[in-house]
């Protein structure tokens, strides 16, 4: 059975998001590399970072990359702190541009941040006005009752078929609403908190996160929430029918397998149905 699963605004927004996240994450790591340390509070006390990436020279004259989290050092040579013969936070394959170039990283970041925000706001409006939000995304009481079962199904890679596959399951609903209405606005607001001009106009904003440096740290953590989401998302997309999933996000049409049988009898549904 074919169902029209994703409307065109959702599909367009989805692929724009992929582009934006790709650029924003990598240019963000480029910007982070200009001062590869994070702090809590309003200021950066160099002797008390929450996280830092440094290159050190050992007694034998060897260079090592050391990442320190809450005072616990880890040897991350080759990836964090020191890679490809250079002292740098994240390695060049993870940053945009590849070489250390803060001014260019900021250009990419602040340009795609605008597209990301406008795209996100348009999706919010669309989801609220088209009822996509209430109908498909918000977990209902009935979903939440089966959260244990769905979690177990995810962990064992048993995914719903037939009628059940027509709707997002509770894990999907929580992941999508969490990203779109939680982590998304969080990363935008913490980003804006780092702007001295914005802080002058809205001084409560950085205070909300405990200060500008806390906001920078939360921005970084939210970035890795996106990375984590993307990894799980890709695994799920690949293991629940890669071609079917990709096609539905490109053309809108999604094939649902009937429980127990093949889907030779294709029932086309009204796209608006």
């Amino acid at each position, binding site marked *: 059975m074919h169902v029209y699963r994703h409307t065109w605004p959702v599909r367009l927004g989805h692929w724009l998001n992929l582009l934006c996240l790709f650029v924003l994450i990598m240019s963000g790591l480029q910007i982070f590399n200009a001062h590869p340390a994070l702090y809590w509070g*309003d200021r950066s006390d*160099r002797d008390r970072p929450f996280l830092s990436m440094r290159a050190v020279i050992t007694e034998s004259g060897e260079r090592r990359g050391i990442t320190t989290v809450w005072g616990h050092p880890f040897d991350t040579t080759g990836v964090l702190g020191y890679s490809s013969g250079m002292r740098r936070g994240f390695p060049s394959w993870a940053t945009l541009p*590849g070489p250390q170039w803060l001014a260019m990283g900021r250009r*990419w970041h*602040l340009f795609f941040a*605008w597209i990301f925000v406008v795209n996100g706001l348009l999706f919010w409006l669309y989801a609220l006005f088209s009822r996509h939000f209430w109908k498909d995304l918000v977990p209902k009481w009935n979903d939440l009752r089966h959260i244990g079962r769905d979690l177990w199904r995810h962990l064992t890679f048993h995914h719903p078929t037939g009628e059940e596959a027509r709707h997002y399951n509770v894990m999907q609903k929580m992941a999508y609403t969490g990203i779109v209405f939680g982590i998304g606005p969080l990363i935008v607001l913490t980003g804006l908190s780092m702007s*001295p*001009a914005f802080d002058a106009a809205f001084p409560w904003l950085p205070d909300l996160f405990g200060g500008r440096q806390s906001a920078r740290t939360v921005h970084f953590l939210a970035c890795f929430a996106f990375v984590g989401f993307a990894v799980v998302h890709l695994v799920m997309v690949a293991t629940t029918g890669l071609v079917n999933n990709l096609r539905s996000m490109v053309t809108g049409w999604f094939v649902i397998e009937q429980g127990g049988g093949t889907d030779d009898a294709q029932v086309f549904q009204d796209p608006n149905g």
Partner: protein
Amino acid sequence: MTRRFSKTPTVDRRRFLTRALQATGFLLLAGCDSLSRSDWFPQLLGKTENASEKVQRLLSPRQAMAKEFTPDDLSPVFPANGTSNPESEAYQALAKNGFADWKLEIGGLVHDPASFSLDELRAFPSRTQITRHDCVEGWSAIAKWKGARLSALLERVRPLPSARYVVFHCADPDEDGQPYYESIDFEDAHHPQTILAYEINDTALPIQHGAPIRLRVERQLGYKQAKYLMQIELVESVESIAGGRGGYWEDRGYEWYAGI
């Protein structure tokens, strides 16, 4: 129940996918890096600087004040970034006798060009503020600054109607001899927190922080806070100065509007 993709990928398929991903990644990154080195693409990216500036200025009242902190919030150490001791002979000679011979020249598009000694600057209406310094690199530090209000100086020299920018010429050239300079518009120049600071944390500004005078323009990033001020020039356009983008770092690709 038939499930098309439930089989675990074979090693070959996995290797193929990994290589394909690596190749795609490499092409994407190489593409992005060559875009970064083109002329047109960074310019396109830079367009949003105007959007950010316009939207922020729309949202932010003209006289919105940067947050001021308490003495408890002061950074134990305020890092000295950029030049920490200008090498030029002229500057070193001024520093040798405690800047007694130093004078700040104010000229350009003004009715009454003037120059002021450090003592004369101290006689101007002053302001003391504990503010957060936000470096473009990402770190922040909090210090207490005291200095002459730039608006009071401008009132004294009486700008001509054609003047639109205030340019700050500094004493620290880089290794290639390019001098540091910065510029701000009149709105920021008249902001109450915009001062020519001669004190940090209740002591005379030391050389590493820009002695004898450093600009504080609190709603912008650290590179706008020019150190080692020698001369202030009022101009209609910054295009004819150095790289023409209104500042040392601006000429090197950073935004003139350093509000974000």
